[in-house]
Every structure is written in C-alpha cells, then in structure tokens.
C-alpha cells in the first residue's frame, strides 16, 4: 500500500485516532497528580481500546468484539465506582487528592 493511499484510507485514520486517544490517556495518567484526572485518563485509555475493538469487529464482520466491548464497559463502570470511593476516603484522610501527598506506604 503506497503512503498516499494509506493516508486517505478511513481505516488508517481510525486506527490513528484510537492510538492517539490511548496515548493522551497514558500521558495524563503519567503526568497529572490529581487523582480524579488520573482516573479520567484511565477511562480515556479504556475507551481507546473499545474504539479499536469496535473498528476491527466491524471490519472483520465478527460480533465477538462487540460482546467484549460490552464486558469492558461494565468493568470500567465498576472500576470508576470503586476508584471514586477510594478517592473519597483518601480525601477524608488528607483533605487533598494530590497523589504526591499519599506517601504512607513508601516509609
């Protein structure tokens, strides 16, 4: 496949979109120090993977990818619920959600 054809193909761009979304989420996960934004970045990464799964499922004509996305969405909702509960408890303890201030385990 020549490059010009590659760049105009929709499939290439949609792969690019999901990878860029994942990269953005990973960047936020690594650099932000607010626990809530870290959790949101985690959601972005999960959504990027969902997008790629949907694309490949629709292109290959298999429904298994769609079923997998349903499972991922359920687990993501659960993960957010637990994560926010933990963040609420952390906020009660230290009155901040800055991840740098939770150093009790590092001795």
């Amino acid at each position: 496949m020549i490059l010009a054809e590659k760049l105009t193909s929709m499939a290439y761009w949609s792969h690019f979109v999901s990878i860029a979304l994942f990269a953005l989420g990973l960047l936020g996960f690594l650099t932000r120090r607010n626990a809530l934004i870290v959790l949101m970045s985690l959601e972005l990464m999960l959504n990027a993977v969902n997008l790629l799964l949907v694309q490949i499922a629709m292109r290959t004509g298999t429904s298994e990818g769609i079923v997998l996305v349903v499972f991922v969405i359920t687990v993501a909702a659960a993960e957010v619920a637990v994560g926010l509960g933990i963040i609420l408890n952390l906020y009660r303890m230290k009155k901040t959600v800055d991840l740098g201030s939770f150093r009790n385990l590092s001795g």
Partner: protein
Amino acid sequence: MKEAVFTFFSLFTLLTAAGVVLSRNVIYSAFNLVLCFFGLATLYLLWGATFISMVQILIYAGAIVVLFVFVVMLLNFEKPNERKTRLPIILLSSAGVWTFALILLRVLSKSVGEIPVLETTARASVRTVSKLLFSQYLWPFEVLTVFLLALIVGIFVLARPEGEEVK
C-alpha cells in the same frame, strides 16, 4: 460526506480528550470528558455499532461522568490544590508515550491492508449481540452479574462515613 463527518468527530474526540488531560480545573476535565464520550458514541455510530453507541451514551456519558461530577462537587475544591509536575517527568513520559504510540501505529498500519472491509452492519445489531451474549458467552455474563453484586456491597462498605460500623 461520511469521511468529512468522520474526520470532524475524530478531531472533536481527540481535542476534548486533550482538554481532559490538560485543563487545570477538575470540573472542566469532567465536562470535556462528557463531550469526548459523545464524540466516541458518534464514531461508533459511524462504524455501524449502534448498540455500543447507545450503551456508550447511557453508561459513560450518563452514569460514569455523573459520578465524576458528583465527586468533584462533593470534594469542593476552592483552589486548584494540585502541585505542578516536574518538567523532566513530563518530558520523559511524553517521549515514552509517543515512542509507544508510534510503534503501535506502525504495527497496526501493517495489518490495515490485511483485514477485509465489510459493508454489512447487521453483525453488531442488538439481536446478534444478545444472541451471542446469552448462548456462547453466558458464563462470562453470569460471572459479571455476580461481580456487580459484589461491587455494590463493596462500595457500600468503602464509602460509609468515618467510624460507622457495618451492621
């Protein structure tokens, strides 16, 4: 026409995702997250996955972001009390992330030509997905329901007020 709509919503999703990661105020991040989820739902719709698109709006934009906004309001930030990340950490992690992304793009773009493009959208209809969910994937589905029940109990214990014992 479809390509134009697709490009618009792809850029919209990426821009709002950047807004989530970059904005200083948490509430702006949460609102950008809603927009990002709506953009993703539109992308699913463009790919023909109508069921997933509706699920995305109901669960992500409807439930998860509401949870986030609730917690942001509950924590009541008056000033953004987040310390700035040090520059070397930002540079290092962005270098790592973009290397990773480039490798991934290279690997995936090799497989682009190999996957056949199908025009049918019947594969992702509610009927096919639910048939599969209740026959071949029945056991994972049931495990997931038990998992959700355990989750409800766990959240109840986790988020109770300080010092209050579970009766």
